C-alpha cells in the first residue's frame, strides 16, 4: 500500500497519477466521488463507461428501460444483454471493467417524488435523458438542491452539451425557458440518430464531470457547445444568467418540485 492505493490500483490508475493535474490526490478524490447518471442509453453508455474506467468510486444509474436490439447501434455497454434492465446491464459492464466502483441501480423513472431524495446522495448529476420532461425536472432539481449538472442532448446528427453550476452560472432554463410544445420535436425513435453521435457528446459530459471532481481546467459553464457531425463543426454559444429565469432568477416561480409541471403530455413549465 503506497498512498493508500493497492498494487492493482497503482497500475490501473498509473496514467492518471502521472499527470501533474491529477496525481495520487486527484485519483483519491475520484475514488471518493459520487456521480448520478440519468439514463443508461445512448449518452449514458459512454458516460458510465468512462466514469467507471476513471475510477469514480460511486456511480448511481437510473433507468427504467430494458435493452432492445435497436439500442445496440449506439449503446455500446449493453452487448449480450437484450431483454435485461439497462441499469442492471450497465452495472454488469462496470463490474467487469473496474471492481473498485460501487454501482447503485435505480430501475425506476426519475419523477417529482423521488428526484430530491436521490440527488441528495450525489456530488454531481449527468443528464443523459432523452425527453424534455426529465431534462427540465433534472435542471430544476439541480438548481433547488444546488447540485452541479452536466447537460447533454442529441438529435439526428447534432448534439449540445453544457455544464451547469447552480447560482454560479446560467441553468438550462436560462437558455430554454420552456420545453417546445409536445409533438414539435420528434424523439430519437422517430427522428433517427447517428450511432456515433452520443459517443462524442457523452464523452464530453464525462470529461466535464471528471474535471469538476478534480477541480481542474475550465468548465463549460455559461457556454454551450453545439456539435454538428455532418459538417464536423463545434460551435460555442455563450449563455447568460437570466434574471427572470423561473428557477434560478431573482424571483423564481419554481421553488419546489411539483409533479404537474413535468407532465409529458402538457407544456413543461
Amino acid at each position, binding site marked *: 500500500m*503506497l*498512498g493508500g*492505493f493497492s498494487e492493482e490500483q*497503482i*497500475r490501473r490508475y*498509473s496514467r492518471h*497519477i*502521472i499527470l*501533474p493535474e491529477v*496525481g*495520487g*490526490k486527484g485519483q483519491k478524490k475520484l475514488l471518493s466521488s459520487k456521480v448520478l447518471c440519468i439514463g443508461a442509453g445512448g449518452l449514458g453508455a459512454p458516460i458510465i463507461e468512462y466514469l467507471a474506467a476513471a475510477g469514480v468510486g460511486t456511480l448511481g444509474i437510473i433507468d427504467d428501460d430494458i435493452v432492445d436490439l435497436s439500442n445496440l447501434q449506439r449503446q455500446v455497454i449493453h452487448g449480450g444483454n437484450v431483454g435485461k434492465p439497462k441499469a442492471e446491464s450497465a452495472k454488469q459492464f462496470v463490474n467487469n471493467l473496474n471492481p473498485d466502483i460501487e454501482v447503485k441501480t435505480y430501475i425506476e423513472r426519475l419523477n417529482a417524488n423521488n428526484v430530491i431524495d436521490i440527488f441528495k446522495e450525489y456530488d454531481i448529476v449527468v443528464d443523459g435523458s432523452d425527453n424534455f420532461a426529465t431534462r427540465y425536472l433534472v435542471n430544476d432539481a439541480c438548481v433547488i438542491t444546488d447540485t452541479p449538472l452536466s447537460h447533454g442532448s442529441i438529435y439526428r446528427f447534432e448534439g449540445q452539451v453544457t455544464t451547469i453550476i447552480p447560482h454560479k452560472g446560467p441553468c438550462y432554463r436560462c437558455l430554454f425557458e420552456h420545453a417546445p410544445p409536445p409533438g414539435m420535436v420528434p424523439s430519437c425513435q422517430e427522428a433517427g440518430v447517428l450511432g456515433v453521435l452520443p459517443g462524442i457528446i457523452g464523452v464530453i459530459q464525462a470529461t466535464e464531470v471528471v474535471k469538476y471532481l478534480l477541480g481542474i481546467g475550465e468548465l463549460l459553464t455559461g457556454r454551450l457547445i453545439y456539435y454538428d457531425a455532418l459538417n464536423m463543426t463545434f460551435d460555442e454559444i455563450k449563455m447568460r444568467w437570466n434574471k427572470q429565469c423561473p428557477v434560478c432568477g431573482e424571483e423564481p416561480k419554481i421553488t419546489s418540485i411539483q409533479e404537474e409541471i413535468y407532465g409529458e403530455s402538457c407544456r413543461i413549465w
Partner: protein
Amino acid sequence: MAVELDLKGEVCPYTFVKTKLKLEELESGEELCVTFDHAPAVENVPRSLKNEGHKIMGIEQKGEHLWIVRIRKA
C-alpha cells in the same frame, strides 16, 4: 533523516508513479531516497520529478544495477 523507498524490481513507469505517490505523503522540503535497479528509471524518474518542480539532490550508483536517487520535495 530522509525517508526511504525501495523500488528494486520495479520498472517504468511505475518507478515514477510510486516515487510520486511517496512524495505526496511528505511535507515540502523533506527528502526521499529511492533505490532503483532498473537502469532507465535513473534517467526517467529524475526528469519527470524535475518537471513537477522537485529537486534532485544526487544520484549515487551503488552497484552495477543499483542506484539511489535523493529527492527534495517541492
